[in-house]
């Protein structure tokens, strides 16, 4: 099958209107209650459409950035509806209220939709069965469903869903449809082929970058090199002389949501938006050429001398303060327990700012026509985008139509809509559809970035090496302050403790404390794959090994002991030890390092084998075990772990964002280097069988990768890497 938003269908699909049976959430119930939506003309876009010819269309509320939601969410519907996924068409939802939250983020897609989407499928199935039973005048138990048909068990007669849909649409909606048991699943729970893959090997998959509209103009933007700032003056003479250039315009970049106020401790008015200059042209190439000919002088608004070095110094200084305490990690009296300890261990860990650098740079095509707005864009959350555009343009939400394309990667970057608002601003100014494409330089130099963090760790041991006290002080930027303008001076950023709270990190320390000291990064920061778990777990899991070394314990044994009351963690560690042959005697210079973390409701442990070389260290193999609850498509779960290994190792040994004199030092992939073919270790991945509720899959593989590597490097060389990234070849 071809994905429904392959080239030809992409624009046409939006006109689908002849629904016969359509079930959806009504717009006032905000996704809480399933209602019947009767027939053509009703203003509700449901999750399941079946028309009389039998064509089934499933509406997918979670945009795909490579993590596999394009398949998994419709499969939840299809499983309960009893129709193979390759017989249906998949359409992405458009951001309207009736679909509830549509943000792909926080590895939440399946976790939040596991029951609601299956219920939607089961509801429609029961109505179709009832219609068939009525027609055959048999009881419900005489009917079965399979592959888009209702079957009369006595006569073996068959009716297709298309034949029943009209009758079914007049029936009452069952309030408690019966969901399948795990044993009854025919599609969920086994390796399956993703329906978007064929279109991604022949060039027909449509990404935001590929949208073409009649009369469309192309735009490129010169942003402030200081990210924030105003245009002092500019000269467009040379740029306007480039053939094809139609406009050179002042535009802006709006930073995220929320009211602008100065009450949260920083100068929000200066940071709410930045000015920019755009070239709008008949071709993208001419826009790019003209961009380079613009002469602009900037007012940095006080951000002209900011630097990451200075930020990290501030964060290290802040680490001397006790910080605002997290309640979800508090056990006993840390200070007292530390005082009573025989040995005290300290370690300060540093993780850098990071750019997401998805392969597809940010881009958006927008057409603003009076009070009507249509968007085609690679975005993680069409519903949030509708909100943002509505506020920004002063247009009613229902007048904004969003067409979600495939995303060429996102990793959090496309969860905010600054680039879409820019395209909207330009379309409004030039009165034509505008496709705005950020360059890779825009992508890497403009942020928002993952916050760089300082983790100050302290631990106390008794004479036998038992851990008595454990403290993790987070020091750095708050994403909540950046995105939602929250005041973080007196409270710990509630998101920033992820991966190390008691639920995610159930180490049985007799006394424990996590806290947060806010430091202003003076640049926009944002979620980056696995967010704070990526920075927190690096420090936490490295420090566990430091405590093991100090207390002369084996790192696995220490973890097994401290996690003795967390059976799932123990099972994952034991499986990891088994597949990695952890206890095997290794030759001199070869070591195995491990790490385990829970994030986004899934547990992942990695073991990395490294070998000391004449110069540096080589990664030989990565072993991984993931427990993400019921594994819906085990092959995709493996793929996501593979992906996290590569993304996480790149962040550990290659790339970082640094800024000096107010500007980002890196610009493109020669400076923001990433791992390539030939630099990737072989991997062995085990997916734990489980019948628990599904957990996240797109991110949990990342947090434990860097500490597993650093733990292995320490065991092989005696050198403890506390600052990322580090150079493997020069250890």
């Amino acid at each position, binding site marked *: 099958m071809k994905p429904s938003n392959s*080239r030809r269908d992409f624009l046409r699909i939006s006109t689908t209107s002849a629904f016969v049976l359509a079930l959806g959430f009504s717009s006032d119930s905000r996704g809480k209650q399933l209602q019947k939506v009767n027939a053509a003309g009703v203003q509700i876009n449901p999750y399941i459409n079946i028309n009389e010819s039998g064509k089934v269309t499933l509406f997918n509320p979670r945009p*795909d*950035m*490579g993590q*596999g939601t394009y398949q998994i969410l419709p499969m939840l519907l299809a499983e309960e509806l009893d129709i193979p996924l390759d017989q249906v068409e998949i359409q992405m939802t458009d951001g309207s209220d009736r679909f509830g939250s549509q943000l792909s983020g926080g590895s939440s897609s399946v976790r939040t939709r596991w029951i609601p989407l299956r219920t939607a499928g089961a509801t429609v199935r029961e109505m179709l069965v009832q219609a068939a039973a009525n027609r055959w005048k048999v009881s419900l138990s005489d009917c079965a469903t399979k592959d888009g048909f209702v079957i009369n068990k006595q006569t073996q007669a068959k009716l297709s869903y298309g034949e029943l849909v009209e009758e079914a649409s007049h029936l009452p909606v069952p309030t408690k449809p019966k969901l399948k048991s795990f044993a009854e699943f025919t599609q969920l729970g086994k390796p399956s*082929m*993703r329906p*978007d*893959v*064929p279109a*991604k*090997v*022949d*060039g*027909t*998959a*449509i*990404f935001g*970058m*590929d949208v*073409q509209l009649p009369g469309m103009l*192309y735009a490129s933007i010169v942003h402030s090199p200081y990210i924030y700032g105003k245009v002092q003056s500019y000269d467009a003479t040379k740029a306007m002389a480039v*053939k094809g250039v139609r406009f050179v315009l002042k535009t802006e970049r709006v930073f995220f949501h929320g009211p602008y106020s100065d009450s949260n401790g920083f100068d929000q008015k200066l940071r709410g938006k930045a000015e920019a200059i755009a070239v709008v042209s008949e*071709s*993208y*190439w*001419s826009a790019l*050429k003209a961009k380079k000919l613009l002469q602009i002088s900037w007012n940095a608004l006080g951000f002209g001398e900011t630097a990451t070095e200075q930020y990290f110094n501030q964060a290290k200084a802040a680490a001397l303060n006790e910080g605002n305490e997290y309640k979800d990690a508090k056990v006993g009296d840390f200070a007292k327990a530390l005082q009573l300890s025989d040995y005290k261990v300290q370690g300060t860990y540093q993780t850098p700012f990071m750019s997401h650098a*998805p*392969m*597809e*740079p940010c881009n958006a095509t927008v057409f603003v026509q009076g009070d009507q707005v249509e968007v085609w864009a690679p975005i993680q959350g069409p519903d949030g985008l509708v909100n943002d555009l509505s506020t920004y343009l002063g247009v009613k939400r229902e007048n904004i139509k969003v067409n979600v394309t*495939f*995303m*060429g*990667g*996102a990793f959090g970057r496309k969860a905010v809509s600054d680039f879409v608002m820019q395209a909207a601003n330009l379309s409004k100014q030039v009165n034509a559809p505008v496709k705005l*494409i950020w*360059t*890779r330089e825009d992508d890497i130099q403009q942020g928002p970035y993952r916050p760089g963090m300082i983790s100050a760790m302290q631990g106390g041991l008794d004479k036998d090496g038992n851990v008595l006290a454990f403290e993790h002080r987070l020091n750095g930027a708050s994403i909540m302050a950046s995105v939602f303008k929250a005041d973080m001076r007196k409270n710990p950023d509630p998101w920033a403790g992820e991966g190390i709270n008691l639920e995610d990190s159930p180490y049985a320390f007799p006394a424990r404390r996590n806290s947060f000291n806010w430091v202003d990064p003076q640049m926009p920061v944002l979620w980056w794959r696995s967010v704070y778990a990526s920075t927190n777990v690096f420090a936490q899991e490295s420090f566990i090994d430091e405590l093991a070394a100090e207390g002369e314990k084996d790192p696995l044994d220490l973890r097994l002991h401290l996690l003795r009351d967390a059976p799932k963690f123990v099972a994952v560690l034991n499986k990891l030890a088994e597949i990695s042959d952890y206890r095997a005697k290794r030759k001199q210079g070869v070591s195995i390092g491990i790490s385990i973390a829970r994030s986004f409701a899934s547990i992942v442990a990695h073991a990395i084998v490294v070998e000391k070389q004449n110069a540096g260290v080589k990664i030989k193999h990565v072993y991984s075990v993931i427990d993400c609850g019921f594994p819906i498509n085990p*092959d*995709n779960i493996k*793929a996501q772990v*593979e*992906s*996290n*290994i*590569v*993304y996480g190792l790149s962040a550990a040994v290659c790339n970082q964002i640094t800024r000096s004199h107010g500007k980002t030092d890196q610009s*493109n*992939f*020669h400076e923001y280097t*990433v*791992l*390539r*073919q*030939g630099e*990737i270790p*072989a*991997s062995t991945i085990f997916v734990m069988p489980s019948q628990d509720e599904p957990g996240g899959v797109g991110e949990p593989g990342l947090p434990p990768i860097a500490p597993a590597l650093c733990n292995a490097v320490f065991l092989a060389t005696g050198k403890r890497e506390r600052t990322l990234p580090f150079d493997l070849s020069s250890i």
Partner: protein
Amino acid sequence: MSIYQLTVNKKKHRVDVDSDTPLLWVIRDVIGYTGTKFGCGMGLCGACTVLLNGSPIRSCSTPVSTLKATDKITTIEGLSEKATHPVQEAWVEAQVPQCGYCQSGQILAASALLASNPNPTDEDIDNAMAGNICRCGTYTRMRQAIHSAAKKIQTAKKS
């Protein structure tokens, strides 16, 4: 602006563009094959890879004026009629693509490798594919898929 004659996917095209326009934008925005992607614009990532007379080139860094009408340019859309090139089939079997954005370039680079080296070693693969970044990290599956495509091609030759 000047007129250039190009042969893309066996079809002749006349395009009217500036001489310095990179082939990438001609293919995507003028001719309309959008399978070839923009990733860096500096020859660093390989997302824009196309084949020029069978060899992979970075179309973002190839001005249209450097091409002759007789040059054979192949994009992902022209690699096979119905995605039946052994590399494409192996890619589907191994479920290589994640976001998919880099994959046109990866597949073309892999097909060029196999055309010149029907039985590549891991090291050959490393060298041939090093110019193509995949931020989703599908490298391990690509390696497996290249090996299995090589086998497919050899079996097809024997029979």
